[in-house]
């Protein structure tokens, strides 16, 4: 009986591995066609760096940003900007992922989020592009989409 169970588990595991391979292959094809990446497998790693921005804590924010972006902003100015942003915008009170992440041909991933700042009357929709740096997803850019 125990062997049967083990065999069944092995079959399930093999099926799962096979399914994963199929899914990964499917993902590649889907990416080329600019289709949606399966959220259940990819959403979590993207959420973390984006949520890291909301703290406005310099260490957390810096840990969320890609080296390219930090270099572009300037490390010193980033810290100054964050302090001022906290004064002017206030805390991020709401962060909502409003669509599913899409992978771009260059390997980066785009996701749109709605952000409500404490001192702003209206929420904004921001397009966030992430890039994988040393196996970790980091923010490559953020751009205001609306209003």
């Amino acid at each position: 009986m125990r062997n049967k169970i083990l065999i069944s588990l092995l079959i399930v595991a093999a099926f799962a591995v096979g399914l994963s391979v199929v899914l990964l292959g499917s993902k590649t094809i889907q990416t080329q066609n600019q289709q949606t990446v399966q959220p259940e497998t990819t959403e979590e790693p993207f959420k973390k760096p984006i949520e890291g921005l909301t703290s406005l804590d310099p260490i957390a924010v810096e840990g969320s940003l890609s080296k390219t972006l930090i270099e572009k902003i300037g490390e010193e100015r980033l810290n100054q900007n964050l302090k001022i942003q906290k004064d002017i915008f206030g805390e991020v009170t709401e962060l909502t992922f409003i669509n599913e992440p899409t992978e771009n041909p260059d390997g980066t991933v785009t996701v749109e989020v709605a952000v409500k700042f404490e001192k702003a009357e209206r929420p904004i929709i921001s397009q966030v592009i992430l890039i994988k740096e040393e196996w970790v997803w980091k923010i490559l850019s953020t751009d205001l989409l609306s209003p």
Partner: protein
Amino acid sequence: MLRMLLVVLFASFLALSREEITFSDPTVAVGTWVEVFGLDQNNLSDYLNVQETPSLSGKENHHLYNDYVAYIDEGPVETEGYRWWHLANLGWAVDNWLRVTYEEKIPKEPQGRILFTQYGENSYYTFLNIINADGTNKENLMVFPNQFCGLDPYTWSPDGKEIAFVDCGGTEDNPNYQINKLNIETKEIVTLASTPGPSSGPSWSPDGNSIAFYSEIYLATEEKIESIIYVLDLKTSGIIQVTDIDSSDPDWSPDSKSLVFNSGIGTSGDLFVANIEERNTNKIFSSEVTFDPLCCAGPIVQPSWSPVGDKIAFTCADTRSTILYLEEHKLRICTINADGSEINKLTSEQENFRSLPYCTGEYYSEPTQCYQPHNRFSDWSPDGKQVVFNGITEFTANRRGDLNGNFDIFIINSDGTNFRPLTEGIYPKWQPTTVMQVPTVTPPTPTAIPPTPTQEIRFVGKEPTPILLVHGCGGSAYDWEETGWVSGLSLIETYTDLLPFTEIYLYQAEVSIFADSAVFSLDYSNSGASLEETAQIIPRSLDSIKSVTAAEKVIIISHSMGAILTRYYLEDFLEEKYSERSDISVFLMLAPPNNGSFWVNMGLEKVIDLLKLQCPQAGSLNSEDLEPLNSKELSTSVSTYRIAAGNQCWFIFIGFNDCVVTTKDAKIDGIPFTQYSAVHSDLLPLALEQAVFPELTPILEHEQTKKIVLQIYEEVVK
């Protein structure tokens, strides 16, 4: 060499008959302008000698060359076989090389000399300086160890050889208030009289017999200090009291019979004329009656009676206030006829806005305290055709003096035209003369005629391609000068009928980075009207430019909100409809908030309030209000559109932007777009400046901006 020339001249004369000597133009006479002629202009040794006395053996004063224009104020004197004329401020010259000049050659540049004060940096030294009214020959007359006592502290003697000034001598416990006179040649100082209290505003009567002034007197019964006007009789040294109400800043009429002065009672301004002989006083003007916020609606100070007698210039505040709080309001120079009629605004407080002040200190306590920009201390040219005045920003002052701030001196024609800076300094006083003066000749300059000021349009290139610069929200026409696009802005038109209680100005640049074009700069900084209403200035200024240049199309270069105003016109959103709207050939937008500013779009009230302080229209720069504009197709009458924007700021979830406008909000589909590391302007909210300071580069200052614009300009012109 000179001796040789004189010998030649003498020999030439000997060769002429007496009848021939009288060949010179018979119309040369005292009161005429003459020019030097008949000399070899290629030979610098061939000049006309100007002697101190009408004699060949006298001291030489100057050498004059062909075309030099001078004014004859004395003569003729016939000695040594010559007829000599005295050239004003130069000396005596024989008339063989003089002829009456043409009207066009008579110098229009302001003549004479102007006395003024400069304070030493980080010291209490006071430098009494003098400068030619054309801006040349600035020299120091004297250095005083302390600041002058009071405002407007000195006055010229009518012969222009001495000045009288007030002095707060003595010690704090034992003050010695007095009026002194200084001989500007010998530098000798003589005390004329003691005054009843700390004094200011002396005015020497044109007949030379009296000096009027005001003293601050403590009235024990009323426990207050009042300013009282007195007249010092220079023959008897007696002092008579002229007024018994709070009054100050007396100035004499040209006939020396009356004084004009202002009263500090109440919240309006009143001008009075006191007839000294008849001992009566009449109010001739009240800002309460003519209440005009654009020109004069509050306290009045420093009236100045034109030497011609027809007009009185004075400083007036834009709102009702007591005189003690004068410095907190905009002050302009206005003129009225001597009977009190026909008030006109002569200067705009915008014209001297040297820097943007921040109001940070307590009243009278901080040297960097912000007051409204001021125009004050006006004084007339001897011919009554021009006015010299002070432009003051960022200063503290009290009625006893102790001034700190930016002080610049300007000259403007009495009709409001030809505004021009003269020098840094304060308390300008035009030296009285009975004749027009000419500047000193510095040999061997071949033609020493002062440069003729002009407001005519100058075209350097073959094709007139006029350019209109439209500043942004919270800016002014001078943004372009401060960032090196243009210099020498001259006011060429003032629009008073476009917006209620608002003047719009159009300036022309003397010099610009665009070699082939006449360049104009619009100034709507006074406008508090809506975007649509303010946008009326675009077609009106285009009409003016087309009219004066005879061009059919104009290039527009806009900064920030200037683009929105231009688009309101181009895309037919004005109340007044313009069927053509085809007079813009090229439209270059720098940092345009085409879809608004993200501060406004997000509804960040704190920042919006800060922006509104600098620009009343800031609240309208949002995507919702601009949606109708953005829903229309771009006008196809414009051959070239281009947008450039900055991206020196970065905010989380917003990304790179210019601290005011995001990339997305600056862009318009179909228009070439360029972006580089710059910020929107130097008028960012203070907190943001601190965030990115000191590396921020406003887009108008960025070299890349000029490079892009010049590249497009070259393409268009060619």
